[in-house]
């Protein structure tokens, strides 16, 4: 039965089944859907779409993809059920046309048929593609510890001073106070200067002239990232320049991401497989930021938008694999 439905959908969208169109569909899915949905990799903010074309009527799916806000406003029972089930996070209107909605449905049907099938339709928990943060990164851990230690020293000093007022004297020895201030000045200058000298060489700016092992262009726009091997500088380029739907990076490769934005300011923040921020750069309209990262650890790397870019900012994401 499942195969029959897939065949029927495939026939109804015969044009879409060309290799070229499916690549376009994959790209469209990547841009508009992956922030909240997967096909067979478990729920994210929204449901896993594996076999959704079998559970839902096609007309309903098209209407839902094109105008979720309208259907919620009309209190469509199925839409309301989904809304309640997924923590009352409404699906945003992504401005999808009818032709694009049909293309997406065909893509989901094809991808579902290629996925190993699970026994039940119950949503899977978040899969290994979304690792939870296991520990602090080294930099984050050190920064937090230094912050705690210095804060405790300052708090203790204030506490000592506050307690001293229980045993008041008319005047204090200002000569001794000035001598202490001199020591404090020298100590603080040494710490500040030393830390500055020690940390300034470790900046993320690409100053070396080595040719990277891989060059990846990243175009950000509300609310998706697009990878490509050629620069995308405008929305019009989206259709003409081939994009990379599923990015894989060889372990140990030095990768240069050339990041830009086609609308507002975004940020491209890479999380390591343990869930800590590894590197990031801003994506600005009219500018290209070059972010170089050497990937020594294999695994799944999530990418989140780290600059507030509008009402669906928290849904803007992508990912890649290092192996």
């Amino acid at each position, binding site marked *: 039965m499942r195969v029959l439905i897939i065949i029927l959908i495939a026939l109804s969208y015969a044009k879409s089944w060309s290799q070229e169109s499916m690549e376009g569909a994959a790209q469209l899915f990547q841009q508009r859907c992956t922030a909240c949905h997967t096909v067979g990799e478990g729920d994210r903010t929204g449901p896993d779409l594996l076999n959704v074309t079998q559970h839902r009527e096609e007309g309903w799916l098209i209407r839902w993809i094109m105008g979720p806000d309208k259907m919620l406003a009309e209190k469509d029972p199925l839409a309301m059920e989904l809304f309640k089930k997924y923590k009352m996070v409404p699906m945003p209107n992504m401005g999808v046309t009818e032709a694009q909605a049909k293309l997406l449905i065909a893509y989901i049907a094809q991808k579902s048929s290629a996925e190993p099938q699970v026994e039940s339709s119950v949503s899977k928990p978040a899969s290994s593609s979304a690792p939870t943060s296991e520990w602090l990164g080294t930099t*984050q851990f050190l920064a937090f510890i230094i912050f705690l230690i210095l804060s405790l020293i*300052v708090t203790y000093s204030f506490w000592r001073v506050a307690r001293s007022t229980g045993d008041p004297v008319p005047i204090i020895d200002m000569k001794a106070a000035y001598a202490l201030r001199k020591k404090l000045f020298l100590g603080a200058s040494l710490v500040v200067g030393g830390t500055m000298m020690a940390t300034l060489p470790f900046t993320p700016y690409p100053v070396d002239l080595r040719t990277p092992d891989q060059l990846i262009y990243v175009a950000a726009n509300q609310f998706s990232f697009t990878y490509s091997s050629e620069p995308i500088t405008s929305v019009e380029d989206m259709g003409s320049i081939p994009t990379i739907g599923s990015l894989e990076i060889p372990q140990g490769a030095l990768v240069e991401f050339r990041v830009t934005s086609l609308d507002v300011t975004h940020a491209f923040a890479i999380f390591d497989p343990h869930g800590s921020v590894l590197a990031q750069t801003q994506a600005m*309209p009219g500018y290209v930021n070059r972010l170089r990262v050497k990937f020594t650890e294999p695994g799944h790397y999530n990418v989140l938008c780290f600059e507030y870019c509008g009402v669906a900012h928290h849904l803007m994401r992508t990912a890649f694999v290092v192996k």
Partner: protein
Amino acid sequence: MDLAKRNTLNWIGLTFTLFPALVLMGMFMRAIQAERLSSAQGWFYPIMTLHGIGMAGLWWVAALACASRVLAKYTNPSEKISRFAIYGTVMGVLLLFACVFLGRFAAGWYFLYPLPFKGNWPAWSSITFLLSLTVLGSTWLVWTLDLLLSIARKYSLSEALGWHYIRGKTSPEVPPVVLITTVSLIAGVACLLSGVIVLVLYFYELLAHVNNDALLMKNLTFFFGHLLVNLSLYLAVGVIYDVFPHYTGRPWKSNKVVAIAWNAVLAIVIFAYFHHLYMDFAQPTSFQYIGQIASYMSSIPSAVVTVFGAMALVYRAPVKWNLGFSLLFLGMLGWGIGGIGAVIDSTIAVNSKFHNTLWVPAHFHTYMIEGLVLMVLGYFYHYCQEKAQITENLKLQKITIALFLIGGYGFLLMFYLSGARSVPRRFALYPSELSHGVFYSQISLFFISLFLLGLILYLVETGRRWKKAYAR
């Protein structure tokens, strides 16, 4: 009642009205992140915008109101301009409410170009927002210039900046509050002019349909935003220089070291904002290094001269630990701890991991709610108590302070932990891999409730005095 007193009490009343409302908005946001109010997530970003700009603007005018009142002991600022500033601020706030509550404007408090033009809110709300900032910015610029003018009528520029102390002279005697306020207001004029330029460029684009340069707009916006918050703190610190001697019985005068320190601050503070653009790799790299150097350097005069000076003044002094003095003292502590978090984040190598994580609101909330807010609330209590002379309930005041500390620092610790664990700021809801962000939000709700309880007790304590002062 004389106009000076009426103006000060009006500023206090405005602060007491807006601050609890803005705290509740902050709680609302944390409740959504804690998945306790997920159904209201459509309001997260509009409220975030109002909370951010509301708090930054409110504490700027509150600090200016304190500085203006203390400055009036030595100079003669125009009370009519102060009254004009109240009207202008209220009008700007009403416009802000309109664009957020009616138009759901949600471009964030620093409205990063070109987001105001590319959101899903109506165009009129963006224009109303820009008009609101125009009203607020121009009002505050007039007020700032008037305060500077009042200083200029009594002191020459070199005297007001204490350059004669640096040259080894001791007269004329310039109170520290005059020196610090002069430094803050000179930088304040630059800050507000930068804001005006940003607004002019926005309106130019709106009318002439010419695109602006995103990097230039970002530099101007952060120069404005960073300075506004930083200078609010300096203005409050200037007030502390004047009020601490009242409680300790010891004088705190300007001298060579104080003059050098605050002139250094003026030179350094205008370059520190570069740290907001570390992740813009297109920015010239030399600016990034200047950003770290300036941010690090700015910690020395504040820590070694001001905080140390305050501690020396309090050490073994016969202090009465009432609500006013306690809050001023603890405000210095919050400034210090927030400063540590800020300096750590201003390290470029660290910033690449912390930029736009919750570490950022962690440190600026520290020097706001446990720093600037406590200093200003401390001064407001001090002022109202001086006018009202009501018997103090020190036990109740200790409970208030304990709630401010436990609630405030508990709330902040959740921010720091979240930031260290890479939870991003400005996320209405967290993705599943960052579910620990939800957990920290839930705990922070408990702590901020304690802080709110402390605020209610404070408002009862100070409100009684404010009311009596108004009636006199």
